[in-house]
């Protein structure tokens, strides 16, 4: 069943075609990887779908509804959430408050003005639950700005996940961390996402990681989709290997 579909989605920056008539489909329940070299247009595509950027042309359908011109908060209500390639948190607020904000927003309790946020037991319980799923419960009282890079990446994902989206975009959740931490983060993220039955699109450069965790892989290059298939199919695709590394992939 198709969850998201883009039709000839395009975005140009000057002469750069960040997205060039992209037809992207996400099926319900998939764990999908979006790969491609630097500047391929992966983040731009997520920006278009999440409403961070307006497309030049094309359409975006989510569960059959046209959301091309929907406002950001409308897309989030519809069930599209995202994390950020460059960590994007509320650094002064505590780790707990960061996640609690997501939950308050989703529950539409965020407009409550005459009640203390700390005293909402349901939100409190859920926030701590989400944090422990991401292995961050012990840090809940620390300001988000005081976390280590790997923890910050996880919290960034946790904020998006706490919105309980139907479709979750994760833009390089492991960028800027050590190889060892990478596996740890991916294990955590993939198990949380699969346990929550959330459809996920993950952008990732490390092909070992991509092959290990994905149900399907989509490859972008210079704003276009080049390949689309299961890890086996992509592994066998000579184009992909040439473009990604200019050399054959390690098997």
């Amino acid at each position, binding site marked *: 069943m198709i969850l998201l579909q883009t039709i000839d989605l395009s975005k140009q920056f000057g002469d750069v075609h960040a997205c060039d008539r992209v037809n992207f489909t996400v099926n319900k329940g998939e764990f999908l990887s979006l790969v491609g070299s630097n500047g391929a247009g992966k983040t731009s595509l997520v920006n278009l779908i999440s409403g961070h950027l307006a497309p030049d042309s094309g359409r975006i359908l989510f569960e059959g509804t046209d959301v091309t011109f929907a406002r950001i908060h409308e897309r989030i209500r519809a069930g599209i959430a995202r994390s950020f390639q460059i960590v*994007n948190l509320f650094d002064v607020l505590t780790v707990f408050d960061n996640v609690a904000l997501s939950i308050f927003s989703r529950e539409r309790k*965020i407009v409550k*003005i005459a009640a203390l946020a700390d005293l909402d037991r349901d939100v409190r319980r859920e926030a701590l*639950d989400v944090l422990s799923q991401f292995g961050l419960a012990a840090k809940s009282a620390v300001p988000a700005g005081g976390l280590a890079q790997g923890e910050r990446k996880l919290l960034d994902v946790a*904020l998006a996940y706490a919105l309980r989206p139907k479709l979750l975009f994760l833009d390089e959740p492991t960028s800027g961390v050590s190889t060892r931490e990478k596996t740890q983060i991916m294990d955590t993220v993939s198990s949380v996402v699969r346990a929550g039955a959330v459809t996920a699109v993950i952008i990732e450069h490390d092909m070992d990681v991509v092959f290990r965790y994905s149900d399907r892989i989509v490859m972008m290059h210079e704003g276009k989709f080049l390949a689309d298939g299961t890890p086996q199919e992509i592994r066998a695709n000579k184009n992909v290997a040439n473009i990604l590394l200019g050399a054959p992939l390690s098997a």
Partner: protein
Amino acid sequence: MAADVSRVSYRPKLLLFAAATLVLVLLALLPLYIGLYQTQLLTYGLIAAIAALGFNLLLGYTGLLSFGHSAFFGIGAYSVAFLLRDAGIRSMELYILIGLPIVALVSALLGYICVRHTRIFFGILTLALSQVVWTLAYKFFWLTGGSDGLRVARPDLLAGMFTFTGGGAFQRFISAYYYYVLAVFAICVAVMWVIVHSPFGKALQAIRDNETRAAFLGLRIRRFRWVAFLISGTMTGLAGILWVPLNGLTTPEVLYWTFSGEIVFMTLLGGFRNFTGPIVGGPLFTYLKTYAVATTEYWQLLLGVVLVLLVMLLPTGIVGALSVATAKLWPKEKSA
């Protein structure tokens, strides 16, 4: 599993409540030991604290620096003057009940325009709009008395239970009005404390820290800013309503941009990053200015120097510096 961690700790809140009550009791006892003049000055200080408290919801919690809060203070003051002159109302409660919706309406209107922008553009817009209000008050002298302003007599307090005419009226008014303002001040502090600790208040801080991410949590940024502006302007307006009976006169000066500057100043003085910053800054500024005016005709220069030193030496204000010092002295004590 997280069941025991999810239990809310009430202890810090109770401690805070106890501390606040203690301060309130001390403030209530103070007039017994200080003279009438000092009591009057302290009343001005508490009113300034209310103005700064409202202002700081925008600066400290929403990250918007308004240079136009004199407009709300002044409109509060002029509302009272109009209510007395044109409707013959003499009750302080009615001034507040009728004045508040007026300042709220003006705040909503000006806020609607201003929150379309942020940073310096926001600041300039608030400045420009407040200057428009000032010009109106200055030019429409048949309505506002122009630069002469409007006189306001001592109002009745608590639905006429206290009236102030005849011998010793001034003294009785100052004593009674101090407690009146103190009560309103306590309510304002409590209300503001709840607001900044509510989900709404957390959302404002999130928007201040990272507008983009806040939008991607589904927050409607502009609306939050608008409501913050509305509350902020209304509370500063309430300060204006309280101020005018004490001052006995309102002139376009309270609408002028330099008065907005004073509200900024007192907030910076106390510290805009702390809830208590503006509460401390308001009275402190009042004393500082009174002292400066009494000592030298170059009082603006003196205040200017203080402001420069403040920004350079204590960028987080008095309360900010104090809390840093306390944290150094008692490193284990984590503030809630």
